[in-house]
């Protein structure tokens, strides 16, 4: 087939999924050279889910801050949660990255009562 007779076609694929509300779930680990800073991330989710997220800034070689859902802090003390996030997060994050993390906390309680 000569070029003049060519028949161009475009193939379109679509992927439809539900928009996450908010677009981040529980935690964002923000590198200190990341294109979006913690304040921008917080303002973004504050517009969609007001007052639900907090910024924890930190002195770290490459992690600038952690933006986390405030609800998590009612289940686990902040210092323990941050320590855990950092231990896992710094294994994969770098200064340029923003890592999205989901965290499930289950509190096991076992109590005895007088009969």
């Amino acid at each position: 087939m000569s070029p003049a007779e060519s028949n161009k076609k475009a193939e379109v694929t679509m992927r439809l999924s539900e928009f996450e509300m908010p677009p981040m779930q529980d935690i964002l680990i923000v590198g200190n050279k990341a294109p979006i800073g913690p304040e921008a991330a917080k303002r973004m989710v504050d517009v969609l889910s007001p007052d639900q997220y907090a910024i924890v800034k930190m002195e770290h070689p490459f992690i600038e801050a952690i933006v986390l859902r405030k609800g998590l802090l009612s289940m686990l003390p902040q210092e323990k949660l941050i320590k855990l996030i950092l231990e896992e997060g710094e294994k994969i994050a770098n200064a340029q990255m923003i890592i999205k993390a989901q965290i499930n906390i289950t509190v096991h309680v076992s109590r005895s009562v007088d009969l």
Partner: protein
Amino acid sequence: MHTVASICTQDYLAVSPLDGVRKIQTLVSEKGMICCLVRENDHIQGMLTLKDLLNAHPNRIAADVMTTELPMLPPATPLWQAQEIMDTLQAEVVLVREEKELQGILTRTRLAQELGKHTDLLTGLYKSDFLYYQGCNLLAEGQEISIIFLDINNFGEIDKTYGHTKGDLILTEVGQLLKTVIPDHAYLCRFGGDEFVILLAAYLPESIHLAQHLGQAFASHPFPFGITVSVSTGIVGGRRSQSRPDNPLNMITNLINRASLESTKAKKIDSHISVLDAVEIHDIA
């Protein structure tokens, strides 16, 4: 005394916390600024310096890059004190602010430019404004002070005999000699012409001892072209009293004036040192 109110500028750039770094970099570059303020609803939230902008990802917003600990100075801050504070804070820019009202910003470059006017180009020593500022500080701290006023003997003759350029070299040499001889807690300035002033945070006996030491230093120092240089020294010691408060600047001015008159008297004395004891210094309320 000169204060930061007279040299701060209101010609500054203000951006929104949501403005992007790339946009701010362009604005700052176009306007030739070295910093900009981050303002939201008439409230200053932070400041961005060139260093902040250079180190930031261009996609970031001002709120994520700005410095939020803003160094501030009241408008009445003397220039010398502003320099001390900016050195301590390692600040390139400070806000000049009275309570909540922003009067302007002051950059280190502008301050250095202004302080340069108070530095004597020939000797490299500070001019008298520096001494007035330090004197006021010492009085405010409740320190004893004394003033040593030095006047080079027959300097006019040196100029006439050897020429003014050689006279200038002598002045430079005198400045260097004084710098090396005075103690750490003394402040030195070239007051004008062939006159130098030393402010000492000390009682009179220490000033007299220093003046005698200076006399020996001049006698033994090999000045250029074999010229013999000596000085007449007037010394005034302050005596603290609690009678009434006064303006510290007036007090320092008065002490320097008295010391200058003593240096004139000293020219007719063999030792070339004349001392006026116990000028009353009123405590500052």
